[in-house]
């Protein structure tokens, strides 16, 4: 049995304002996003009967509170993870008759992640008399954090494939260019950058410079996936879920083996192969894409593992400009995590951007006649969690 193509569609999407600090609570920001997506779809909160929360976020108990918030009546479906996988599983659940309208939601206010948060906490903390204790194999014991982790992956990639840093540094340049065409992006107003600007930005964790690193900001978003029956009465044209897949592996940066890059692939490869096979489309059919791009090396590995180029050639694919608007695989046209927004758990915004592209709502950054799009959500350096959704319009 294949993937139930065109049985469910994305009918509503919404990004709240994305900014360094947003007043209010994460709850109110997520609520604003849900209301925005409902308006976009022309649906009411009482139409929602399935809920999907994002990785690290809402536990089942918190989901139950959201069920109360959104109408105080039983819902029939719940899921948890990263956006590409949540869209895929919502579509499968809808096709199976478990639910009719699934809401994927996220909000993050006043809760910066990363070193800035840890430093603020360290400064606010009382004088330390005993060292803080963390789980026994936690990377924080060794002074690691996300940028340092991805610096380790970047160095390994560069050494294994003789990949020049300058090739990878082309990615932030592309992302910033896209952001200049997206009025909602955080960095667009600062204008375009060059590879030399990336190299000249402060070193964070070698070889990564500041402009190689994701933003660290607040924001929210929501996505509504609905049955074909519901979709035909919605305000906007349906963006069909054609195929998808999920992969899960690795124990949060604690275990590694030397097969990070191997012939069989890890989570992203598995999810991608499943998604393209289920959708019955080829890589060449993809008009527009959005992929989790927390650092340049992740983008290089994304396109390799998704099959858009060979393993070890991702850095050259980036250098050749294929990901840029006008290239053969325009990707992250909103500016992505480096120049649009990284609101702490941002994988849903990759879905939002592809939906807007397929609807033709992207103005200056619109990919002409985009009909089929691919979304990749991933985490843990490409071999960890992965979610792929292939989307298409009528």
């Amino acid at each position, binding site marked *: 049995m294949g993937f139930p193509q065109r049985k469910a569609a994305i009918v509503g999407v919404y990004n709240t304002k994305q900014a360094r600090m947003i007043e209010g609570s994460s709850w109110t920001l997520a609520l604003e996003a849900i209301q925005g997506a409902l308006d976009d779809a022309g649906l009411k909160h009482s139409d929602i009967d399935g809920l999907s929360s994002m990785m690290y976020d809402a536990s089942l108990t918190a989901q139950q509170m959201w069920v109360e918030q959104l109408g105080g009546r039983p819902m029939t479906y719940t899921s948890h993870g990263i956006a590409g996988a949540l869209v895929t599983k919502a579509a499968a659940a809808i096709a199976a008759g478990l639910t009719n309208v699934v809401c994927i939601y996220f909000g993050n206010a006043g809760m910066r992640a990363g070193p800035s948060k840890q430093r603020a906490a360290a400064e606010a903390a009382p004088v330390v008399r005993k060292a803080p204790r*963390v789980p026994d194999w936690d990377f924080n014991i060794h002074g690691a954090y996300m940028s340092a982790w991805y610096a*380790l992956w970047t160095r390994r990639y560069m050494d294994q494939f003789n990949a020049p840093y300058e090739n990878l540094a082309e990615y932030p340049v592309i992302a910033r260019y896209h952001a200049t065409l997206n009025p909602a992006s955080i960095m667009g107003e600062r204008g375009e950058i060059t590879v030399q600007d990336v190299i000249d930005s402060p070193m964070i*964790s070698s070889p990564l410079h500041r402009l190689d690193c994701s933003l660290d900001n607040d924001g929210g978003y929501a996505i509504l996936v609905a049955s074909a029956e519901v979709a035909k009465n919605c305000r906007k044209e349906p963006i069909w879920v054609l195929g998808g897949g999920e992969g899960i592996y690795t124990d949060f940066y604690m275990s590694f083996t030397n097969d990070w890059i191997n012939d069989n692939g890890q989570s992203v490869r598995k999810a991608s192969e499943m998604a393209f096979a289920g959708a019955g489309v080829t890589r060449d059919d993809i008009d527009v894409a959005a992929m989790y791009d927390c650092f340049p090396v992740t983008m290089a590995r994304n396109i390799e593992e998704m099959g858009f180029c060979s393993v070890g050639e991702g850095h050259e694919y980036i250098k050749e400009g294929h990901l840029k608007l006008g290239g053969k695989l325009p990707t992250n046209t909103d500016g992505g995590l480096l120049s649009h927004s990284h609101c702490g758990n941002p994988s849903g915004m990759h879905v939002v951007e592809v939906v807007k592209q397929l609807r033709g709502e992207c103005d200056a950054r619109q990919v002409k006649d985009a009909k089929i799009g691919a979304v990749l959500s991933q985490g843990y350096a490409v071999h960890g969690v992965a979610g792929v959704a292939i989307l298409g319009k009528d």
Partner: protein
Amino acid sequence: MTEQPYNKPLPQRLPENEEFWEGLEAGEFRVPKCNNCGYWHWIPYPACRNCLSTDQTWTATSGKGTVFSYTVVHRGPGGFRDDVPYVLAMVEFPEGPRNPIVLGTMVDVDPDAVHTGMPVKVVYEEIPGEDVTIWHFAPDN
């Protein structure tokens, strides 16, 4: 120089991993080795990843490995902020067939001299006033 209290995160010392922490105190980096299939594992799990046997023994590794990857951190979190620049390394141990890769900071090394493939050894740091010894890596000359 007055000894400053250690203000970086430290691991919880749990009973099920007691032999590991005792090993560090004895100058050994011990990992679970499966008595059924012979695989060495890092991080520890209650059962072997290869054959799911729970018959594993904490076994001392050679304590030597090679740098799989490294970074020089210039912006450190929390208690590490004043240590920059410091070197963080992923070190591949020779004990196979699923060779463990272990994360740690490098000490006694010029950051510019670190390279992928560099031979290193585990070194041990007893934390004053705390109940754990932690590990680092140093060049194995």
